[in-house]
Each structure stands twice: as structure tokens, then as C-alpha cells.
């Protein structure tokens, strides 16, 4: 309902109302892009492009048939897909481009551990097949239900559940292997 009200204000000519949509969805969008294994700079570009495309194609959005959040994440997913499939991916997504510790303020040891966990998770995520990774990244967006994820992915609910199960299994394996390797090195 809130989104509908914002869209009505935009339709009435209040361009600045779009900023409220950006505020509303930037956090889940960056979370999604992070889980896709993108680096900060690349995620910023894709998130910005997502909102710009959403603005440009607002006339095509049919609020009667689709939810705005589903539509927005479909745009983001397609852009991210293209970016990840491009030949320059390996060069652009560099380890140094990984996220910085977020706003909570734990001690230096905790921060370091958390950063290492995130780095490990992102590198494990990048090893998942794109389709499984995308479903996994979307399912942790609180604004989306499983049916929305299936709609964005263009797949059945059962297929999404299978992809999720497979992705989590593989991710757990990868993280475990990484931890074992690290303990062996120590």
C-alpha cells in the first residue's frame, strides 16, 4: 500500500517521491547483490542502474498484476546476471573489493573474524552455479516470498526449493572445506 501511494504521487508529478522507493529498497537490494558474490563497486553500479531502469520503465510497470518489489528485483537480477556472465567478471570482482565491516561495533578480533567469515562466504558463493546462487540470494530478501522468488526466476516453486536445497548443501561443503584447509595451514 505504501508503494502504491508513492507511485500515485510520482504519477501526479512528484518526482522526488521516487527517492522514498530508493530508500525503501536499497538495503535489500545491496544484500541481494552481496549474496550474488558481487563486489562493492560493481554492486553500486548495478543497484544504481536498477533504479534508473525502474524509473525509465515505470510506464511499463503494471501495478495491478505485479508487485513493485518483484519487478525491481527482476531488473536487478537480470542486470547482475549479465554482469556476472561478462568476460571481465574475474578481473572486476577482486578480493580487495570485498565489503567492509558494517556498522555494529564489536572488538577488533570479532571484526576481523566477521570480515574473514564474510570473505569466505562470498568466495564460496561465487563457486555456486549462477541459477542456484540467484535463488539463494533472493530467498534471503525479507520483502520477497518464495512465490515471488519463483516468479523472478521464472521457475516453479518446487524447482526453486530444489535449487535452494542444492545451493545450501554445496555452500556448506565449500565452507567446511575452506575451514579444514585453513586449520591444516595453521
Amino acid at each position, binding site marked *: 500500500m505504501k508503494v502504491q501511494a508513492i507511485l500515485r504521487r510520482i504519477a501526479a508529478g512528484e*518526482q522526488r517521491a*521516487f527517492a522514498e522507493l*530508493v530508500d525503501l529498497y*536499497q538495503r535489500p537490494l545491496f544484500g541481494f547483490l*552481496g549474496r550474488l558474490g558481487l563486489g562493492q563497486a560493481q554492486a553500486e553500479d548495478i543497484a544504481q542502474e536498477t533504479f534508473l531502469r525502474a*524509473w525509465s520503465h515505470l510506464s511499463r510497470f503494471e501495478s495491478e498484476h505485479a508487485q513493485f518489489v518483484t519487478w525491481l528485483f527482476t531488473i536487478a537480477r537480470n542486470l547482475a546476471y549479465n554482469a556476472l556472465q561478462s568476460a571481465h567478471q574475474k578481473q572486476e570482482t577482486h578480493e580487495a573489493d570485498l*565489503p567492509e565491516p558494517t556498522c555494529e561495533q564489536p572488538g577488533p578480533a570479532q571484526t576481523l573474524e566477521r570480515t574473514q567469515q564474510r570473505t569466505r562466504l562470498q568466495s564460496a558463493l561465487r563457486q555456486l552455479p549462477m541459477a542456484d546462487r540467484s535463488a539463494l540470494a533472493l530467498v534471503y530478501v525479507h520483502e520477497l516470498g518464495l512465490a515471488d522468488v519463483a516468479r523472478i526466476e521464472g521457475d516453479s516453486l518446487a524447482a526453486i526449493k530444489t535449487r535452494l536445497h542444492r545451493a545450501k548443501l554445496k555452500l*556448506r561443503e565449500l565452507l567446511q572445506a575452506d575451514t579444514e584447509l585453513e586449520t591444516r595451514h595453521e
Partner: protein
Amino acid sequence: MNDELDALLQDDLLQAPADFTQRVMQRIEALPRPAIQVATPTRSAPQRWQRLRWLATATGLVGSGLLGLSQLASFVFGLWLATAAV
């Protein structure tokens, strides 16, 4: 491990820069304004369906009532004809 993995995945791996909205809006201001059509709250499909069903039931009831009345009238007329002939 599963809970730990869930917690890790729920964590925001990336965060939007503080001036992200401002940056997007700056670029949007240079773009043409889209002509959007927002659906005004109208009667939903289930409501419409329910109304149609109600209309069909009412039409059926009125129709069968009229048919019954005409049957009764013809019976009474037959009776009258029979008694009048005697």
C-alpha cells in the same frame, strides 16, 4: 552449521553508501519523466465474480418463480374452464 549459515546469509554482505539515494536522484533528474499508470482501487476479480454469481442466482430464481406462477395460472384456468363447461 545450518543456523550459522543462515545467519551469515541474512547478514548484509554489502551496504549502500550513505549518499546512494542522492546519487540516484541526481541521475534521475536528468531523465525524462515517465508516464505511469497506477491502478486505482477498483472492485477486485473475486468481488466481481461473486457479484456475477449473485446476479445469476437472482435471475434463475425470478425466472423459475415466473414459470411456476404461469403453471399455476394455467391450472386454475383449466379448472375454471372445466367447471364452467358443466
